[in-house]
């Protein structure tokens, strides 16, 4: 078994999907959380980071960067990427869509003007997000009626991706109220024993 180190801050943020993949697969790893207020980042770690950023992965001394590249590598290694080439592409497609949603969230989350922030947040939750979720609900339905998995007939990192997006979107069922298939999928994934165990045990951070 290779030696894995995942380097990020002490938050869920852009590393949580990778952590979920490790835990769902039952693979041990060093969950390095750097405190930038104490100078732990950049510190000596920035020089190791291929693009000078976190998160990045160290596998037996070799570095891999970019959140999704890391997550996909781990998913592939632990048989969570999809069973066929087409399924892998479909999983990639869903992950990219979640990323598009996350990007929208980060836009208003980082907005300093409070009034503008409220406006952006309102638009996101009332218009943008329901539109994205509507598409996802349809695509889930296309997969054998939607009471199983997003892709194929087994858990993939795409399922973990949407279960992770749940936390980013406030950690409540509210955004998924009108989308029963997705709500059901998220519940099922978060109830997966190893996923549930990690969600309960992980450090509690605001984001």
């Amino acid at each position, binding site marked *: 078994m290779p030696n894995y180190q995942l380097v990020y801050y002490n938050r869920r943020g852009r590393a949580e999907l990778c952590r979920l993949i490790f835990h769902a697969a039952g693979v041990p790893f060093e969950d390095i959380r750097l405190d930038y207020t104490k100078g732990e980042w950049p510190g000596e770690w920035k020089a190791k980071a291929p*693009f000078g950023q976190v998160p990045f992965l160290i596998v037996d001394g070799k570095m*891999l960067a*970019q959140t999704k*590249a890391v997550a*996909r*590598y781990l998913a592939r290694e632990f048989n969570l990427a999809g069973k066929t080439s087409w399924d892998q*592409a479909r999983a*990639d497609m869903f992950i990219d*869509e979640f990323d598009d949603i996350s*990007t929208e969230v980060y836009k208003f989350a980082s907005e300093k003007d409070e009034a503008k922030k409220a406006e952006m947040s309102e638009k996101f939750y009332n218009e943008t997000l329901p539109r994205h979720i509507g598409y996802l609900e349809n695509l889930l339905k296309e997969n054998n009626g939607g009471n199983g998995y997003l892709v194929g007939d087994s858990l993939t990192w795409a399922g973990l991706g949407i279960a992770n997006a749940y936390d980013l979107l406030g950690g409540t069922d509210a955004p998924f109220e009108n989308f029963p298939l997705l709500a059901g999928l998220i519940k099922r994934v978060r109830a997966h024993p190893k996923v549930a165990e990690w969600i309960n045990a992980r450090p509690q951070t605001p984001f």
Partner: protein
Amino acid sequence: MPTYKLVYFNVRGLAEHSRLIFAVAGVPYEDFRIERDQWPNEYKEQCPFGQLPFLEVDGKVLAQSKAIARYLAREFKLTGKCSWEQGLTDMIVDEFSDILSEMRFYWYESDPEKKAALNEKFNTETLPKHLGYLENILKQNGGGEGFIVGDSLTWADLAVANSNDWLRLVCPNPFDNFPLLTGLIKRVRETPQVAEWIAKRPDTPR
């Protein structure tokens, strides 16, 4: 051989990487292009997320430009020789997406003064920082006179070469201070299948 149809606007944009992958692989496909002023049309219903591009393979549909490009690269053996190399190619392609995201702040800014300032920042700080990391990664791969990952052409090299076309929309001579990347772009563009495609593809502003 499956039947491939790539549906996008009549621009290089987010589909060009996939078109380059088809070209290098020598695999025929229908390069379906929709003019902007005819969008949305009946094809929108086929789009998994309501957006272009999408790829149709024997009637099944795939969305998201990078998922499409990666699928094609994998099918045509352009993703690297092992799982780790695949990861490295993904990492490099994602870095270009980050650069594009930063470029979009400038691209979509309507206030002329703010726009000029964003353009300046992108060209003099943001872009060189990213390209510097990429130049270094290329150098670490056996000195940088070959390919950016492993020892053969991958979709990551095509991403580098393709970026020259869209970066020049906002930054004159983006690779001037990066000799290894410049060399790689030249080598890729001179690859016969790539050269042939560049010569015959529709000439569009972007």
